[in-house]
């Protein structure tokens, strides 16, 4: 397998993974924007996290920001998979920012709220996976 082909496969996987994160974040964003109470599957912790002040930044639901971030990653990874070299450059800072945000939210859940939300943990797993994928992508001079 050539380096270019391996890179394309990684970007395709990253796009699919980002799509899963996008679905998760979109679901939460819709719930937050419409004011509908979400189904937490009976988890009190989930209500606690999503109802906390940390679920919004300046009045904007964090889930909406997450959806935008995932959409950006999905778009850039798709373009990168089709050979658009310029799409690769912003992927690393965006996923890096998402990674840092994820660490912050995990800290908040673990040490501030003492409660975990399954949607947030799923999103964290997706972000870690995306970070792993962009790290695994071989750089251009490895070809």
């Amino acid at each position, binding site marked *: 397998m050539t380096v270019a082909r391996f890179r394309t496969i990684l970007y395709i996987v990253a796009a699919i993974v980002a*799509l899963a994160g*996008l*679905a998760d974040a*979109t679901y939460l*964003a*819709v719930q937050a*924007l*419409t*004011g509908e*109470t*979400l*189904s937490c599957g*009976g988890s*009190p*912790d989930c*209500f*606690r996290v*999503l*109802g*906390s002040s940390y679920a919004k930044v300046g009045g904007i639901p964090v889930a*909406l920001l997450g*959806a*935008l971030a995932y*959409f950006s990653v*999905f*778009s850039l990874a*798709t*373009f990168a*998979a*089709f050979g*658009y070299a310029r799409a690769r450059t912003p992927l690393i800072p965006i996923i890096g920012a998402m990674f840092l945000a994820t660490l912050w939210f995990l800290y908040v859940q673990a040490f501030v709220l003492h409660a975990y939300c399954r949607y947030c943990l799923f999103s964290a797993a997706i972000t870690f996976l995306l970070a792993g994928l962009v790290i695994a992508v071989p750089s251009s001079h490895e070809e």
Partner: protein
Amino acid sequence: MKCYLPFVIVGVAASTVLTRPLLCQTMQPQRPTISGDEPVSARHPAESVHIRGNPAAAVTLEEFGDFECPSCANLAPFLDQVIKEYHPRARLIFRNFPLSMHQYARDVAQAAEAAGLQGRYWEMHDVLYREQPVWSSSGNNARRLFISYAETLGLDLDRFQKDMQSDKVRERIESDQARAKSLGVKTAPWLFIDKREMGPNDRNPEGVRRLVDEAVKAESSTSEKK
């Protein structure tokens, strides 16, 4: 074609997924509800009622419910649907009838009323019924769950917890119970349609729909004669 494909893929994803939150926000139908604190009688705050639907509707469904009763939980989404279907001609008034056989019936009624004092009665009403299987079997965690629901609804938690124990909330529940007693309510759910008690044979979706339909038609013909 290959160079256009990523644009197509991203465009399709954008239109199907990313626009959903915006669409939901802009196209969300206005819920025909009013604040649960809309007073009907000015004599005493405890006499204010929770109305779902058009407050001036000619046909009134008055429900006496217990948040811990499973059949009340089953009835709730159906009544919500009926009120939407017959909007603006029908409205629902919900009154507390906590049954002594239920461990949390009183606490949960207090939680709903406390949410009502912050203008989110019906949101709390809906989540309490929807999550009933969870909190009713949560042991000593029920109260914690009510607080987490309040948190999700964006309520002021300190105020919510104080209100739950307040005289205002207690009086309101007692007022509902007194009304239930005066009307001869024996259990929950107990439903009146235009002050007419529903018979045992009508206590099912078909029966409710038929009686509401009759009441709406009767009201329409009366207003036409006028």
